[in-house]
């Protein structure tokens, strides 16, 4: 990035330090003379960054009048559709009439010191600019996995379905480079938004002063935005958007994937146990079909991507991204499962494969599968999505594997092995326990997002939730009572439906952290 802003500052040229380019060209209008007697109000930095410093936003809540010029200017600047707002204005309110306080929170990207969007990105579409600290996103690299949108506590990266990629506020870094103010800064009639320089080491100590009502804690990813709050905010000051909670996107391809891959891993686990207990005859059919299911579900998962053709890029971020690791883990699982199935095929035709080799291959498959599911579940454990951010998330996914895997193998002709039914029941009970603990945890929390999830589950999602729990109980009873092939298949299908419903609930019931939005419901959907 060229930074004439910095170079010119170094050269001692202070002429460029103006809120807008036009103002530098024209004489000040007469009426402005008064203002000019005050210290110059500069809205972009006046000097070069020193090592250990970066740019950041300053938002002065005492000046903001909630006119939303910044929102409109940002959308114009970036040619974004109305549904995508890289800068948003939220409302907070406190006090009681007539001593009511209503304030506005205008937020773009916080250009965090530890950007969670960047860490989570599987394709390395994000960079934190070494000189300016601006968190940049490359729409060309992005594959539209939307993992960053789950990782950011402020709802900053937003997915553009028209393009199939995410986009976000880049502090108009190209304008800054040219010595011009970002669109939001330039548009604000009150001068409430400014770009300033922050000492990053010092900010690691001071960042708590960035916290504001309606803003998720700065600790999540060390947000750099500084907010000037009004004096004496009423103690009950808070966001106004809390009375209506929306269901989140269900991510259907991921619902399919998160049920079927776990079933497949569970199934290979069951097969491995059958193998080592010496009842491994006839494993070829379940192995091949499990492999097929795993392959289909992995393929289906790419439908979640905005740009499926570039799915392979998801391997790039393995050093930091759990999504990359999931892809690696599940690919390894698919590879091991293929090898194992290959050996079973050879064994079928030649009978020459050593049982030890088969059980070793089965074990490898299981190991890779467990690693894959572990990565799968770990990637949902993010601060920005509080109801996912607990050990209950891996417990939920592994319980599915334990429930569906044995039921699948059982339905593939192993209905005689009664321990499979028992294992599945253990899985069902584990799942039931996980869900009950989760519901209690959510209901008793004093964290807004968790309580809001609880509210969703007890109101709009009550029926699906009850159906899901009933499916678990019914599965247990069916599995224990009936072991005809028909019963096994019915039990399996019921369990798959139940877990599918559970996964759908998992996705739609999460209430993400976000900056305060406006009251208007449709306005909030944009957030």
């Amino acid at each position: 990035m060229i930074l004439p802003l910095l170079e010119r500052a170094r050269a001692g040229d202070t002429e460029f330090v103006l809120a807008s380019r036009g103002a530098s060209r024209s004489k000040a209008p007469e009426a402005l003379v008064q203002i000019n007697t005050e210290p110059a109000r500069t809205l972009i930095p006046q000097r070069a960054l020193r090592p250990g410093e970066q740019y950041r936003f300053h938002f002065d809540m005492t000046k903001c009048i909630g006119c939303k010029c910044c929102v409109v200017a940002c959308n114009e600047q970036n040619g974004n559709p109305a549904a995508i707002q890289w800068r948003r204005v939220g409302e907070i309110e406190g006090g009681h009439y007539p001593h009511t306080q209503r304030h506005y929170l205008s937020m773009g990207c916080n250009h965090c010191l530890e950007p969670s969007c960047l860490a989570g990105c599987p394709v390395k579409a994000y960079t934190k600019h070494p000189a300016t600290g601006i968190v940049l996103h490359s729409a060309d690299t992005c594959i539209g996995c939307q993992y960053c949108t789950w990782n950011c506590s402020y709802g900053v990266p937003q997915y553009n379905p028209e393009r199939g990629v995410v986009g976000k506020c880049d502090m108009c870094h190209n304008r800054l480079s040219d010595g011009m103010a970002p669109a939001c800064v330039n548009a604000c009639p009150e001068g409430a938004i400014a770009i300033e320089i922050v000492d990053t080491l010092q900010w690691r100590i001071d960042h708590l002063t960035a916290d504001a009502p309606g803003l998720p804690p700065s600790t999540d990813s060390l947000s750099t935005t500084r907010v000037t709050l009004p004096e004496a905010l009423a103690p009950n000051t808070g966001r106004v958007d809390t009375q209506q909670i929306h269901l989140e996107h269900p991510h259907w391809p991921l619902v399919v994937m998160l049920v079927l891959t776990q079933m497949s891993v569970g199934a290979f686990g069951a097969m491995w146990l059958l193998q080592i207990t010496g009842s491994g005859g006839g494993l070829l059919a379940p192995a091949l079909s499990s492999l097929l299911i795993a392959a289909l579900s992995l393929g289906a998962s790419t439908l979640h991507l905005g740009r499926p053709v570039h799915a392979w890029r998801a391997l790039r971020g393995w050093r930091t991204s759990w999504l990359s690791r999931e892809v690696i883990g599940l690919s390894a699982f698919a590879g091991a499962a293929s090898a194992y199935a290959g050996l079973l095929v050879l064994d079928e035709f030649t009978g020459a494969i050593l049982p030890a080799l088969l059980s070793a291959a089965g074990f490898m498959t299981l190991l890779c599968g467990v690693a894959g599911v572990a990565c799968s579940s770990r990637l949902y454990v993010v601060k920005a999505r509080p109801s996912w951010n607990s050990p209950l998330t891996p417990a939920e996914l592994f319980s599915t594997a334990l429930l569906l895997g044995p039921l699948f193998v059982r339905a593939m002709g192993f209905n005689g092995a009664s321990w499979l039914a028992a294992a599945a029941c253990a899985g069902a009970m584990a799942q039931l326990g996980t869900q009950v603990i989760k519901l209690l945890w959510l209901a008793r929390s004093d964290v807004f997002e968790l309580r809001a999830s609880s509210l969703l589950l007890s109101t709009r999602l009550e029926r699906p939730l009850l159906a899901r729990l009933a499916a678990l109980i019914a599965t247990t009873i069916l599995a224990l009572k009936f072991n005809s092939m028909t019963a096994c298949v019915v039990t399996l299908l019921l369990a798959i439906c139940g877990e599918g419903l559970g996964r759908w609930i998992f996705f739609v019931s999460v209430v993400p952290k976000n900056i305060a939005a406006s009251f208007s419901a449709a306005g909030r959907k944009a957030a």
Partner: protein
Amino acid sequence: MKLTRLIGLDNLAAEYSYVRDPELGYTSAKRAAERWVKTTCGYCSVGCGMEVGVRGNEAVAVRALDQHPVNRGKLCPKGLSEHHIIAAENRAQYPLLRVNGKLTRVSWDDALGEMTARFGAVQKKHGPQSLGVLSTGQLVTEEFYTLGKLVQLGFGTNNYDGNTTLCMASAVSGYKVSFGSDGPPGAYEDLERADVILLIGANIADNHPILCQYLEANREKTLIVADPRVTKTAMMADIHLPLKPRTDLALLNGIAHILVRERLIDHAYIDQHTTGFDELARFLEDYTPDRVAAVTGLSAEQIYRTAFLYGRAKAGFIGWTMGVNHSTQGTETVNAICNLALLTGQIGHAGAAPFSITGQCNAMGTRETGFTSSMPGYRKFDDPGDRNDLAALWKIDESRLPAKRGCAYPDIVEGAVAGRIRALWIIATNPLVSFPNQDVLRQALSNLDFLVVQDGYHPTPTTELAHLVLPAAIWGEKEGTYTNSERRVGKVNAAVRPPGDARPDFDIFLSVAEKLGVRDELYPGWSKPEDAFNEWRRVSRGRLCDYSGITYQRLEEEDGVQWPCPEGSADQAARRLYTDGTFQTPDGRARLVCAPWQPFPEQPNRDYPFVLNTGRTVEHWHTRTKTKEVPILERLSPQAWLEMNPADAQKLGFRSHCRVDIISRRGRVRGVELRLTEIIAPGQVFMPFHYFETNVNEVTQSAFDPVSREPNYKQCAVRVERTGVTS
């Protein structure tokens, strides 16, 4: 969706690319313009200077003029996205005539032929006054001037008024009563130079956000905001006066009482420049702080404090908008505001003014030139001197000038209900959203023999009822001037061609005149707006609103010029009226007016326990015809809401976001989203009026100021029910 996009090879990178534009800097390539056209914003009357970026025949961007004396490089969210209104899908493109119940495309010639024939038939049968014309504050001054002559002299009816009567009429009549003439006396600069600013019923943060930068720049001020609602503007105030609805007149009289009693008045100014002080002083005796406190719900201490601040101010500014005007006592409340300024001499010098902050982009233009509530140049219908003067300028017989003002807007509507008005021409306004008590309006329109609606958009709720729709060019497609609140005339220019067969209103008026056979007489040799402007300069010469020193060239060069600007005046400093204390009354003295406070007409009771207040939101303009077409604005504020205090909601068992119906004696608005908020007082509810889908004017009342004829939009009694649950 294209396959390449579906699989992700294409991510629309070209569409979302950026350019380094020489004017805008680094920005979305969608905004890259080939040329820039300077103009003045077409929404509100702040009058911001801007440029429209054009590529081909498409307006692709706007930018504020950095050096413009009004907006100093800033625009509000509506202005920032104004180019999107031009290429909207529902632009009216072709004349449409109702044939067998269906609007059918016709040629301009047929359309205007039909229009003049039908109007002529109606006028022949029922008299010339049976034609009514409802105009607007949205046209350019040249068009208002042209239309005024066409209606009054061409069609020969004085039943002509504008939607400005729904908006600023009380300010107009208040100024006329107090100062002898319309014309806001101050300048925006006063907001920056006053040390005490009192805003009454003016939520400028939502409605005139660009003016807020003047307040922001004025660090020495004390800002007092009187508003029953804790608006965004009230939140900016040093002192918020949360008075009970429509008690502003009592408050103003109470302040005047304290000013007089505590000798905070300017006796010299009163003696030299006003009449009526003794009567006023006697009248004010009743407005003791204790009584006013009881009426307004404020404390006596708050009233004292406000009075002392204003009385001791070096420069005191009082600004107001619809909270004052939208009232059956609007005119009197304006008089009471002017009283305060006159008592203290806070008028005619820097920072000191009573100042109406106007609504529409060119409401001022129609007030000056429009021939509705007065004759062009603020000339009075009943002043023989004014009549002779104008008749001579126009070279017509004085008897052709109407003897008096015709029906005002609500009286034209009443006239249609009663069958006195049989044909109506509605221009650039949308009463099906904006007129109070919609039932009456619908009845009026359904009574008409012929309804012509001339608008830039179709369908609108009003064009849908028309017998004839005339497609007009809008802002960005035509030339002329707007006058803003501080009397600054700004140039408006065409950036693109209008869509289809749409034509500038100016051209339409000339063509109608031609059909009537009066074009050569009324508009000799006219072909372009500047011809009208030049005649208007002559007609305004020597008047308070003197344009004679203003030329199109000057407007382009100086980014607007304030009137009065007599020929030869080159001064660019902020102009104020009445700097010498001489007013537009026969004796040159301003009138101190005794304006007794009365409670608003429809008080709440057991059946209708809430006082309903109506107003706006920053994202939308008036009846949303334009802003609905701007995706980002519509997204930010897609539907109406009703504000209610949580204490009231608790009693009723309502929760935030539930849907409610608002019911008055006149109608019901259904399914409005409820917002529980402490910004509204218990016992009051608030709803924005922009939304046809849930139109608050179904429930507002037919109560009008007796002088200005402005509707009392701000208070009526309603009850609120859960939608679908009848009590």
